């Protein structure tokens, strides 16, 4: 009896699993069955007709958007429902990311024939999708922004947020020490300021001047991409590609500039919290800054939500100071880190219409005020109430934003360089050793 029961259960489980397989196999062909028919009379002719999705609610097909930023998942869903409310069209938002890299998940989607209409891309993903993305150069929104992603003359990426990074500072502490952050534009000024802050440690109640973390296994993206990006772009005009072009030409570096950069990093190593610099982590770095233990932090505006949610955050003002490793460097680096691309075999018109709507007023309000993004659109009236937003806006207004070409370096390079930052922080390398080692590692990675 027992055996019979068990075998029935097992057989049931098998049938259920087969059924589950069957349903995932077919759902790509009829995704829109569940959207109720309420078609408006609109004779918009489409280049690409798709029989299976003609019964969407609005005038256009229902589309899918794959988002790679889990932190704004909820806000994008709000955005989609707002779009549905205003136009009657349907956008489904799916979020991947967190521990999984979005570009990988998308490759699996592609293999499974389950591609979304709009998806998350970073600029160095574009060559992989060659011939599969729609050129958006005739869209109206391209006139309201300079940040769209253009690759080989084709506009392939829709920008939706600007991020920036430099040395984030705690304004309260700088005021107490009598330092004006706008004067920090030369190595000499930095040295002077840092020594002053270091001597006032007890008065200011700080652990160290810098909250800088060169731990490679979890924070390699910070040192290997963002801090390294300062070498590539700090002090350059927005469209100046000097050092990225040099780097992508077989992994060459400018030794003089790298040496100056190394000296600056050396100063950061010297005045950092020893518990953080070699084997700390993101959480303790950001928490330390939020609690006023560090005057400067080597992250970007994305740490804002973590700071605001820290219970020991005193409400101090913050801003960005440049990595002035050469005289006269007065820019921060930033730009649009990732984009939305439109898949050529999807519902192109519906996707284009949605993107156009996203660049307009009601969508910008949600993206800026709720998702706390910094808008790349010139006609956006809203300003985020987030920390750093004012500082970034000021740099942008003064034309002091350098584009972060660090996203265009060969992918995976950050894993090769981040360890060298750690060795330098540990004292296993000196400034010259850092310069020559990093040059050698970059050259051999590009050669491979």
């Amino acid at each position, binding site marked *: 009896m027992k055996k019979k029961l068990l075998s029935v259960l097992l057989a049931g489980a098998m049938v259920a699993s087969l059924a589950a397989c069957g349903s995932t196999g077919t759902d790509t062909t009829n995704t829109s069955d569940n959207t109720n028919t309420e078609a408006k009379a609109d004779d918009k002719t489409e280049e690409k007709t798709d029989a299976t999705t003609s019964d969407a609610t609005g005038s256009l097909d229902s589309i899918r958007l794959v988002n790679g930023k889990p932190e704004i998942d909820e806000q994008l869903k709000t955005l989609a429902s707002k779009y549905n409310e205003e136009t009657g069209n349907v956008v489904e938002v799916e979020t991947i990311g967190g521990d999984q890299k979005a570009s990988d998940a998308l490759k699996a989607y592609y293999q499974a*024939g389950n591609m979304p209409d709009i998806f998350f891309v970073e600029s160095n993903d574009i060559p992989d999708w060659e011939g599969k993305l729609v050129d958006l150069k005739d869209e109206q929104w391209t006139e309201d922004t300079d940040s769209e992603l253009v690759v080989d003359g084709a506009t392939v990426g829709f920008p939706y947020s600007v991020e920036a990074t430099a040395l984030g500072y705690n304004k309260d502490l700088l005021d107490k020490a009598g330092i004006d952050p706008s004067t920090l534009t030369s190595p000499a000024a930095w040295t002077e300021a840092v020594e002053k802050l270091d001597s006032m440690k007890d008065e200011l109640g700080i652990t160290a001047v810098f909250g800088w973390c060169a731990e490679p*296994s*979890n924070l390699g993206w910070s040192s290997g991409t963002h801090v390294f990006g300062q070498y590539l772009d700090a002090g350059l005009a927005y469209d100046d590609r000097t050092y990225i072009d040099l780097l992508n030409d077989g992994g060459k570096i400018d030794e003089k500039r790298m040496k100056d950069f190394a000296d600056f990093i050396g100063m950061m190593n010297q005045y950092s919290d*020893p518990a953080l610099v070699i084997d700390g982590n993101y959480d303790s770095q950001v928490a330390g800054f939020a609690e006023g233990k560090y005057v400067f932090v080597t992250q970007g505006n994305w740490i804002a939500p973590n700071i605001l949610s820290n219970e020991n955050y005193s409400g101090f003002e913050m801003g960005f100071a440049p990595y002035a490793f050469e005289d006269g460097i007065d820019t921060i680096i930033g730009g649009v880190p990732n984009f939305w691309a439109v898949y050529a075999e999807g519902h192109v018109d519906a996707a284009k219409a949605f993107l156009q709507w996203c660049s307009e007023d009601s969508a910008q309000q949600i993206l800026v005020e709720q998702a706390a993004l910094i808008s790349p659109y010139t006609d956006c009236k809203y300003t985020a109430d987030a920390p750093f937003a004012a500082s970034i806006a000021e740099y942008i207004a003064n034309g002091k934003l350098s584009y972060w070409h660090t996203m265009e370096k060969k992918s995976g390079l950050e894993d090769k360089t981040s360890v060298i930052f750690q060795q330098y922080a540990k004292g*296993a390398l000196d400034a010259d050793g850092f310069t020559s080692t990093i040059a050698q590692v970059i050259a051999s990675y590009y050669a491979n």
Partner: protein
Amino acid sequence: MKGTSRTKRTSSLICLVLGIIITIVAITVDILATVGFISSDQWYRGPLLILGIIGIVLGLYFYPTIKHHRNIINFLFLFPLLFAFFVTVILPLFLGLFYSFTDWDGIQFHNIIGFGNYTRMFKDPQLVWSILITFLFVVFDMILVNLVAFLLALLCTSKLPGMGFFRASFFLPNLIGGIVLGYIWQFIFANVVTIITTKYFDRAYSLLSDTNTALAAIVVVYIWQYAGYIMLIYITGLNTIPGDVLEAAAIDGASPLQTLFNIKIPMIAPTITICTFLTLTSSFKQFDVNLALTNGAGFVSNFMGEILSEGTQMLALNIYETAIKSNEYAFAQAKAFLFFVILACVSIIQVRISNKKEVEL
């Protein structure tokens, strides 16, 4: 009688032929859509394929004579399993092998480059290094895990009180996933072990920040995770030693050490073989602890004339990073095939040895 069997035969033949035609059409549409001659939105190709296969099966099923009938029924019952095995194991294996000869980037491939990936593989210092440290890791693991597990098993089979509790707690680390475990130990190495190392060795930073010590740290964590599991197998082995043999030894005046070396160890020799191979294959495939603990980071100042940044990256992690981070799926496929060959050799040797000793488990 003859007439019915003839009509049956013709109808089954029609069924069969129709099924084959429909299947071929469905597969052609599929291939054309993949290559790009027609739009890939052909919703009917799935149902068509299923219809064709049903046609073939029905045709075979209704084909006269009992013998055929039985064969096809046998096959039908095996079909779900065979199909699943084919789709999830055989097909990816050959597809992977094919991709390793191309320049596939995970989305599409442009050229077939023959053995390019394979020759390039052995010129890549990072990969050679990864293979070397993987072998080193395997050797250390095999010896240390078995030693620790055997000692724990001896302890747990002794008559001390509270052994049930200890047995469970030694086994517990094996139940925690490797990723979680890696992060826990990362914290321990960075915040707890540093207190000791600062005091006695004047080293303020974590063991994980130096390649040599980081490798040792991975071995330690791996032993901690895996020894409990192997211990359970040793306990079973030790418990199967007949009591009368031990009793006879005790009467003959054998010391505990003599009992251990001359009776217990020879009696559990088959268990030792099994445990050795279990540790061998699982430490070859080491991935999760490696990923969570160091993510491969580690500085090697000179290996084959190059500076390496990923000194603790083992073979499995190397393959993963080649595909995911460097975005070279085809190159990673070639490495994965090498990995497959190594593991296959180990498994074959294992099966041979196990068969020779006629292990019972």
